[in-house]
């Protein structure tokens, strides 16, 4: 296996199929649809919104958001990269367990994490009560960190979002280790030095992708920041919209946010503009993991255990306890099974479609049917739009389409079709696809990055057709990336809240909307069972994800 770090080597271009190009165009158009609708709405003017926002809202919100993004970036980046390194190249007790356990926090939605921690660290919560009764303290004698604060929010978000970084960083380290690090080691480079001078720079593009995903989630988060009282840009501006009920205002705000997000992404890409890492030919072989001394091993174990404990075991345990108490008190909610089925089914459909669309776009680019990466960037835009705003942007065109179809049908056949898309849940699935398309696009692009262009050239020179190259070379090599993207999208769809709340049809609840309804009423303990189910349903994919991303010869 050879790794090259070179300057902008472009993959070879084959004449692309026009059908591919058209299909990709359709996908990009779908993603742009809500944005176009928003631009249209934004042009309607919003009167006195901006002077107020600029004077009273945006300065504070910008600082708060910047600190949050910075904090979460550092927390998620350090935990994700650090644990990925330990698990990928070191040998210590429990390593095999942590390899998948480190992903578990992915199953916990940020808003649930926030509920749990406020509950658990409250003076009346189980931990403080235990401390107080042990030492005979009055509530005010025991100082507790305030979870409802910016540092609290940073920590909680960092704890549930670090797996995005961990996942990609680990794959990156696994691919590198075998040859480069072995070579480095034979040249007498120490472990620490190897990490900082070789592994980390090589893994940087991957880590950047992971951190960007985590930060996008952070900027878009409404549930946790609202509950913890952190005035992020999304939250402040969002509530300004709600208090004014102005769609044009909301649209302008959304576009403003979008510009900021695109700025964030561009900045990140610009930062690694000269870096291109490709794995030219060969297969990665299983890395030989370095055994750690007893002391180092204990430290490594601790470093891996703490994120799992705080990010997953603690909240899941607390939820399980709360759910158990509610079960005894209220019994099993009758609707919970249907809600679970709804959640899993919609997430599965959303995932399948997102994956298909993502693959289409990336393949089109690879085969040279499109010359620039613009389509990729555009296809990933949905991730940068807050869920609520995306939903509002989708409402108008989809309902417009529905009404048009119904109208035509009425004219031709006398049958009114009603709201075909927005009344059936199809709108929700479309929202999922647009919102999460960035994940398969990003993942597959990174996956393709590791398939050296020379492979395509070799295959083509041996007479393989472009379709054959995709089917017989790319797809098998992309399998881990596809699997990882699928599971991430699935978990994300399942946790999705704002678009679900706004776009779902009558009499349709998901686990997330159930939890939210209880939380909105202040009775979030009644939502504990549904919250626990989100975590449980999310667990299977997360564990699968861990297996999938393991190298084949492990």
């Amino acid at each position, binding site marked *: 296996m050879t790794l090259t770090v070179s300057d902008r080597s472009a993959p070879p271009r084959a004449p692309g199929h026009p059908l591919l190009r058209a299909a990709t165009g359709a996908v990009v158009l779908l993603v742009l649809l809500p944005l176009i609708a928003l631009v249209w709405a934004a042009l309607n003017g919003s009167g006195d919104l901006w002077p*107020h926002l600029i004077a*009273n809202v945006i300065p*504070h919100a910008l600082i*708060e958001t910047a600190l949050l993004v910075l904090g979460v970036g550092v927390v998620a980046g350090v935990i994700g990269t650090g644990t990925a390194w330990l698990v990928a190249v070191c040998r210590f007790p429990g390593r095999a367990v942590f390899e998948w356990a480190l992903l578990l926090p992915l199953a916990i939605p940020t808003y649930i994490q926030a509920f749990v921690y406020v509950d658990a660290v*409250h*003076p*009346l919560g189980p931990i403080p009560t235990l401390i107080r009764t042990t030492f005979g303290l*009055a509530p*005010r004698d025991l100082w507790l960190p305030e979870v*409802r*604060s910016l540092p609290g929010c940073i920590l909680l978000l960092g704890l549930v979002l670090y797996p995005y970084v961990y996942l990609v960083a680990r794959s990156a380290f696994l691919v590198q280790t075998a040859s480069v690090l072995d070579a480095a080691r034979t040249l007498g480079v120490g472990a620490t030095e190897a990490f900082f001078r070789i592994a980390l720079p090589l893994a940087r593009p991957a880590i950047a992708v992971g951190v960007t995903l985590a930060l996008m989630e952070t900027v878009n988060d409404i549930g946790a920041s*609202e*509950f*913890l*009282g952190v*005035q992020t840009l999304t939250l*402040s501006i969002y*509530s*300004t919209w709600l*208090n*004014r*009920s102005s*769609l044009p205002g909301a649209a302008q705000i959304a576009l403003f946010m979008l510009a900021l997000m695109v700025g964030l992404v561009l900045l990140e890409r610009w930062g690694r503009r000269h870096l291109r890492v490709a794995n030219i030919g060969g297969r990665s072989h299983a890395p030989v993991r370095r055994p750690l001394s007893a002391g180092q091993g204990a430290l490594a174990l601790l470093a891996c255990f703490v994120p799992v404990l705080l990010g997953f075991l603690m909240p899941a345990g607390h939820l399980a306890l709360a759910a158990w108490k*509610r079960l005894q008190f209220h019994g099993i909610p009758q609707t919970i099974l*249907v809600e679970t*089925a*709804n959640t899993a*089914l919609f997430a599965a459909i959303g995932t399948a479609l997102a994956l298909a669309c993502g693959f289409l776009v990336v393949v089109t680019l690879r085969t040279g049917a499109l010359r620039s990466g613009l389509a990729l960037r555009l296809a990933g835009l949905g991730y940068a739009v807050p869920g*609520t705003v995306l*939903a*509002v942007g989708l*409402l108008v065109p989809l309902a417009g389409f529905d*009404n048009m179809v119904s109208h035509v049908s009425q004219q031709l056949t*006398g*049958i009114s*079709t*009603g*709201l*075909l898309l*927005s*009344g*059936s*849940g199809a709108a929700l*699935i479309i929202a999922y696809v647009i919102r999460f398309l960035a994940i398969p696009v990003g993942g597959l692009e990174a996956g393709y990055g590791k398939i050296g262009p020379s492979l395509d050239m070799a295959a083509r020179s041996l007479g393989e057709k472009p379709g054959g190259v995709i089917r017989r070379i790319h797809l098998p090599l992309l399998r881990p990336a596809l699997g990882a993207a699928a599971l991430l999208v699935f978990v994300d769809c399942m946790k999705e809240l704002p678009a679900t*709340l*706004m776009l779902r*049809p*009558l*009499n*349709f*609840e998901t686990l997330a*909307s159930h939890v939210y*309804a*209880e*939380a*909105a*009423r*202040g*009775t979030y*303990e009644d939502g504990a069972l549904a919250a626990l189910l989100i975590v449980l349903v999310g667990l299977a994919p997360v564990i699968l994800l861990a297996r999938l991303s393991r190298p084949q010869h492990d």
Partner: protein
Amino acid sequence: MVRTAANSLARRLAVAGSLAAGLALAPLGASAEEVVNIYTTREPGLAKPLFDAFTAKTGVKVNSVFVKDGLAERVKAEGEGSPADVLMTVDIGSLLDLVDQGVTQPVKSDVLEKAIPANLRAPDGSWYALSARARVAYLSKDRVKLDAITYEDFADPKYKGEVCIRSGKHPYNTALIAAYIVHHGEAKAEEWLKGVKANLARKAAGGDREVARDILGDICDLGLANSYYVGLMRSGKGGPEQEEWAKAINVVLPTFQGGGTHVNISGATVAKNAPNKGNAVKLLEYLVSPEAQDLYAKGNYEYPVVPEAPVDPIIAAFGPLKVDNVDLVAVAKARKAAANLADKVGFDN
């Protein structure tokens, strides 16, 4: 005939589980069966018992969706095809918003006009209040000895570091600030809001019942929250822990200086393109019947809007409610100014 067949197929698919909603491409809503479709910002847990009772009584099936934000946008976008019959909100401001955005239609009903006092409905029948609740003071039983308190008092420096309240941008608080503006003007309201903020024991966040929990946890001594939560907690319906929270507080009905207690409403309007308008009116009429008003009082611990309907004993124990004299519509109009003030003083920051 064709239409009925298609629709009954749609129904059957829909009934086969809401799973079908996604697959069948068969919109729920219009149907041969008697139905009424409700879009509501009211949490399903609170509204469901009322809907069930209505179905039991009339045989009209209630389809509902809880849409927290963007209700008006959704109905507006759906336009003529919208299945919505009744739009139900928990705040006078958002109710009037619906009317202003042109997604409602006025309906006339002798039953509604007779049951609901004139100040709790639109003269033209474009909206009707269905229940009410007061924004009341939760005071620590152990640490605050007061029989009466004004909203103005919450800004008194003697309560520094002792006040708990939810976000200043929450509709409940926006309406309260709006009422303050109507009473005292914007400048005084800003001063007041600054004072309350200076008194906060913790961030203005979380929910109303956390005020009681935080008082028990000795985080703060007093706070503002809605009346019906006390009913939920004291009745034991929320479980034993919440009974403990409620035991830690005394409830006092605060007043504005020279006014009464701030009361907000939950209410409903009929959607502009309602496909089942008759059933929509039927539902509204049911909701002000003695039976439903009793459910509002006993099930949700709200104040009924029908004057002769009894209040639940837990709520009645707070003492006689002297409803503030300001006009609800004026409060709704001051809402934007109130939201701006909350931003301006950085109430939630």
